[in-house]
């Protein structure tokens, strides 16, 4: 092929947008985090070095938001992975044609956009007339789902499981289907029981997919916002306010852009650390 016009022409539209809306904002955001930058105030932006970061480390609201986010990740991610694995295994055991039907049934909640899903569950969780308490009342239980610090986060997590389990189940199902049948047949011939086959052959072969799904959910979990915003608005007593919600409120209710930018970088650092640790753990296990 004779050399012709450089490939840059084709890449240029994307790279322009990439520079303008990814690299630029990334660098600008970091610079911003070194300034006291308040929108809607007369104070000119002033350079303050790492003051926003030191403020964040002392800010009790940051500790609280980080705690709530960690609790969300801790409660939601392992359950998601385990339940998705159970669902995928179940789906895989169902014969061909019916599988598509059940798979679609499990995926349906994900078609609801976050505000709709949130409104729906807010109604289920209503203490007086929600369906959950209506069903529990006859057996003498009434749970203050959204007004009690102990229940609010589990309530968010339950709704999240309902809303998001379809995705990882589908991914794990296709991982299961990619395992060559010959491996399983060979194991059966060697006298392996179904349980042995599951834990000795299927799970180890599924590990790359499991790692992928886990990492994606940890990353996603740290960014939780929509369902919390819709169901509890971060309450009661800010016990469910996530880091992203705190960043949102700092930037767009209080207009403290510099501080919000610093908080964003802290969130990024937390996510990066957790992701690296997971990759490291997986690698050590392998060797």
């Amino acid at each position, binding site marked *: 092929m*004779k050399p012709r016009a*450089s*490939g*840059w*022409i*084709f*890449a240029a*539209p*994307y*790279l322009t*947008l*990439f520079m303008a*809306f*990814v*690299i630029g904002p*990334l660098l600008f*955001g970091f610079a911003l985090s070194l300034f006291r930058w308040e929108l809607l105030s007369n104070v000119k932006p002033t350079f303050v070095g790492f003051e926003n970061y030191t403020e964040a480390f002392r800010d009790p609201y940051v500790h609280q938001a980080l705690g709530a986010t960690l609790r969300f990740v801790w409660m939601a991610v392992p359950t998601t992975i385990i339940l998705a694995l159970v*669902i995928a295994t*179940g789906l895989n055991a*169902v014969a061909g044609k019916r599988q*598509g039907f*059940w798979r*679609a*049934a499990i995926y*349906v*909640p994900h*078609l*609801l*956009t976050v*505000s*709709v899903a949130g*409104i*729906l569950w807010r*109604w289920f969780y209503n203490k007086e*007339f*929600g*369906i959950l308490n209506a069903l529990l009342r006859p057996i003498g239980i009434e749970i203050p789902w959204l007004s009690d610090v102990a229940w609010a986060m589990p309530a968010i997590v339950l709704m999240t499981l*309902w809303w998001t*389990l379809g995705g990882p189940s*589908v*991914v*794990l199902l*296709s991982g299961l289907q990619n395992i060559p049948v010959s491996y399983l047949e060979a194991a059966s011939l060697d006298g392996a029981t179904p349980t042995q086959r599951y834990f000795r052959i299927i799970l180890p072969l599924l590990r*790359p997919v499991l790692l992928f*799904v886990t990492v994606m959910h940890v990353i996603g979990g*740290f*960014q939780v*916002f929509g369902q919390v*915003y*819709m169901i509890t608005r971060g309450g009661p007593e800010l016990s469910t306010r996530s880091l*992203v919600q705190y*960043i*949102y409120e700092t*930037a*767009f209710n209080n207009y403290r852009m510099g501080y919000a*930018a610093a908080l*964003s970088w802290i*969130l*990024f650092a937390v996510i990066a650390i957790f*992701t690296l640790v997971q990759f490291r753990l997986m690698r050590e296990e392998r060797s």
Partner: protein
Amino acid sequence: MNKKSLRLFSAEVAMGVGSLFFVIPCLLLVLAAFKPDSEIVKFQGILPKQWTIANFQEVLGNPEEIPLLRWLLNSVLISISTATLVLTVSSLAAWSMARLRLPGKPIVYGTVLATLMVPGQILLVPIYLLLNTLGWLDTPLALIVPAAGGAFGVFMLHQFFLGIPKDLEEAAALDGCSRMSTFINVIVPLSRAPMATLFIFTFVGSWNDFLGPLVFLDSLERYTLPVGIALFQTSYYTEYGLTLAASLLCTLPTFIAFMIFQRQIISGMAASGMKE
């Protein structure tokens, strides 16, 4: 019943019972939308005692205060434009990175890949200030254009283009095809499946985006469905019937699209998870 069919049967029963957890809340949404408010705010059984379409009439009959169709139109236009723009610029860039002479390619592609790890929220504040300077806040551009800088489409299509045999492009070049016509007549037809997946993914992502429209838009008639509905809940706080009817209406298009494109959506999801 032999052992194998017993296992099949019990798996099916387990799936049936398990899927109730996913399906019942959706059914409750549908049923509640047909209930009068009095039945919603006082639990009187799952089925409506008195079926009514008053909620829908009220939601749709008041376009000044509840511009539901307007929000739907905004959502459709924004999602289609975003997906089209992302597909166009990403596929051209991915192809040039996979195939064309691009001095410094490893650095460029490496940088693009590295940004896959950056969570979107970290860009929220700087992009807001940038859009403010551009005067794009409260316009659809604020949601459409920045999305096209994302790295996912380039990454996904780059991987796919690498797998297309080079001979085809070389033959096209020998026949005197320009680069652009090679791309359009040779590459695009071969890449329908991944391109459709990218389009659907971007469309769904844009359709469901909540934080973006919440931050970048602020007039009632410019909202997208997710933010419109959320606002609705705030102002019609006590009128659950209306809120649920509006919620059901705004889920219908998604549901219909899912029924049509179910295979592509699910196999795309699955495939995206298979790449390490």
